[in-house]
């Protein structure tokens, strides 16, 4: 009897020891940057280069509103030198996680904290704030990484954060930042147009929604400037003025830039699950207006989207909201190639 008990004890003790023995190994020389959304990781890598080590919490095919705190996340954050969050109320789970990590320097407002949205023009800031309006974001739409132009500002914010925490690499970060911003401009508007008008002017025009009319009106050497348009804006020209339906307000910055009109959402109010009355209203609207394309982040239930698509003969475009959620989307830049490409395919199919 005693032997059996001691046998159980030995086995038990060995088991406990083996679990306690599992400890993560890590390097220490590079600046550790933890970001919430995978898009920020891609941007941070561009700015920080080989001087930092980046990891993200939410992949492109995960719902950024909900993250269940895992022990590993607290560990990750406890070792972080810099923590990049959207800074609006997207990541309501983040403060609890930061508390759990017991790492005072990455708390909101501290040296290691970067608000990715600082200095951005935020869309859809509500006039009245009430949770009855759904999972409303009281500071406006927080899915900021869906516009390449916002990427430049996010990069600036990350640059400021990195500079604060590793001032010795300031020049390196600055050079990377400028390179990144130039690449965003060239990929968005095309090299030729950036050379002619400059990234700053183009960004300003696009923000004010007068880029296309400006380019159509003005000429250079007798040729309308619009002929020199390239990049994603050129790619997205056929999408201008087109109407689509979405699931959640994930895409506001993207659709605004491309001139797409999101007529309605499957959610009755942001963050609330679709209800029968609302869905049937959306379906009627899609039929009446002949809306045949849906743009939905692929973390939503494909079955639901397909059901509506079938009832309206629409083509659902289900894509990852950021890098890592789809094998074609590995970086911040890839996402725009894929989103625009898939939308174009869907519209080509319906016409």
């Amino acid at each position: 009897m005693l032997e059996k008990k001691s046998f159980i004890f030995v086995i038990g003790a060995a088991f406990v020891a083996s679990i306690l023995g599992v400890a993560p190994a890590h390097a220490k020389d590079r600046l550790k940057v933890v970001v919430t959304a995978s898009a920020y990781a891609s941007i941070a890598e561009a700015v920080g280069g080989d001087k930092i080590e980046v990891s993200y919490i939410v992949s492109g095919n995960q719902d950024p509103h909900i993250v269940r705190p895992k022990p590993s996340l607290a560990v990750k954050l406890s070792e972080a030198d810099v923590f990049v969050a959207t800074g609006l109320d997207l990541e309501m789970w983040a403060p609890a996680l930061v508390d759990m990590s017991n790492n005072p320097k990455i708390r909101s407002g501290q040296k290691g904290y970067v608000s990715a949205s600082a200095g951005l023009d935020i869309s859809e800031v509500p006039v009245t704030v009430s949770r009855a309006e759904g999972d409303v974001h009281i500071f406006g739409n927080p899915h900021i990484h869906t516009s390449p132009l916002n990427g430049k500002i996010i990069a600036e914010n990350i640059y400021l954060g990195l500079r604060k925490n590793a001032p010795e690499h300031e020049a390196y970060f600055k050079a990377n930042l400028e390179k990144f911003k130039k690449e965003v401009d060239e990929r968005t508007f095309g090299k030729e147009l950036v050379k002619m008008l400059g990234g700053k002017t183009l960004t300003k025009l696009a923000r004010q929604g007068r880029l296309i009319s400006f380019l159509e009106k003005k000429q250079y050497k007798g040729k309308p400037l619009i002929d020199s348009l390239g990049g994603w804006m050129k790619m997205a020209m056929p999408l201008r003025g087109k109407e689509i339906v979405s699931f959640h307000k994930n895409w506001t910055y993207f659709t605004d830039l491309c001139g797409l009109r999101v007529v309605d959402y499957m959610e009755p109010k942001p963050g609330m699950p679709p209800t029968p009355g609302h869905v049937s209203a959306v379906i009627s609207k899609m039929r009446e207006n002949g809306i045949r394309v849906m743009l939905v982040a692929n973390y939503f239930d494909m079955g639901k989207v397909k059901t509506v698509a079938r009832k309206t003969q629409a083509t659902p475009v289900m894509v990852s909201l950021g890098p890592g959620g789809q094998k074609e989307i590995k970086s911040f830049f890839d996402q725009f190639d894929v989103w625009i490409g898939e939308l174009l395919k869907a519209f080509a199919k319906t016409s």
Partner: protein
Amino acid sequence: MNFIEMMAAPFFECLVLVAIHTYLGIHVLRRRVIFVDLALAQTAALGTTAGVMLGIMPDTSASLVFSIVFTFLAAGIFALTRMRNDRIPQEAVIGLFYAIAAALAVLVVQKTPGAEHLESILVGSILWVRWEDVGIAALAYGVIGVVHFVFRKQFLMISEDPDKAFAQGMNVRLWDFLFYVTFGLVISFSVRVAGVLLVFVFLVAPAIMAFMVTNRLRSQLAIGWAMGTLVTVLGLVLSYRIDLPSGPTVVAFYGVVLALGAVVVFVANAERRTRALLRAVAGTVAAALVGLGVYGFGGLLAASSLAQSEDGHGHAAVAQNSEEEQKIREEALREEPSFDDVALLRGRTGDSVPVVVLKKYLAFDDVEKRLRFIEEQLVKDKTTGYALLICFLSQEDTPVFFRSQALDLLKTQPGHSDFGYNAEASPSENKPALDKMIEVLLGGGRLTASVLNTSR
């Protein structure tokens, strides 16, 4: 789109579900293994989730097959654990099985990005059911129904009185296994559409209503089917009318109907009906008071929690970027017109521009605005205007289009020349042209405005 078109498929799906689940529910109540359904349903969900981890897309027949395999394994375990050890009731094993399956599903989801919506397996998505799903379910349930009809005696015997069945020499374990296998099959189909909660309610609620009224199997079935259909239809209509998610609405509505039914049956069965009725009314009032009390208590707590978060102890610190921070940010990023820039430009244009004006010019972040500023200056004071124009053309970051606009501006001025400046070349390549502009327009930088005026 109207009610009928929207709700037709969910409605028929509910009918099909009620038909098979009421019958199985009667078995489950007799066996006193209520949670077997939850456990099997959760196992089916675990199967789907684990399938996603292995690369089987949810919503496909492959994933259905995979989840059925999981429920078969569970069926085997349930058959093995029945009647083995009297000290541990089977319900405990089943409950534990449910908890472990649910926990495993959460763990698997964690390791499987993209399987997030599988969490919705609890609530289901009856609203989204497609006609072919309804057809497939009807077919599968029909086959199982036939099997159960053919072997009804055996199935009833092992549910009702396993000891007697054992004494008669039946292979109870085999029949148990068969029962759980058919049960698991039904659950695998229904959970995908209706979700764990709704399936559980379909299984248990109509059966309970029937049990409250009668003990005869046929009457139980009839009452269960009738009540199940009625309550489901009303629940769906309610969900459409008040525009709430269908699954949870139907579940909650079943709860209300069961509570009302219990009161009615209580009064009906009582020896003295008036007294029972009074008691029922008193009970309802008491329940309402308790409800009000909880509501009021919640309000009090809400007020205090609000006060707490205003103290700054809460998590309200997700605050927006304050104006102060914005200012700091802008300052940190601003490309201050460095002393070098100012000096360089002043050097080139030979002090033709007052420092104040030059700084003002450089403070414009926007090329368009700079150009407009130059235009204004040209009207006010030619020398300053020309000098700024030359600054504009000699800056590396002035884009090509605006250089050419500046040249156009220059050509409208007396002289009508662009001095051979090429807008597409860089300022350093344009040095001869710029030098010439300085020479002619600014008199080498040393001429005053009056000299310039006379020189034309």
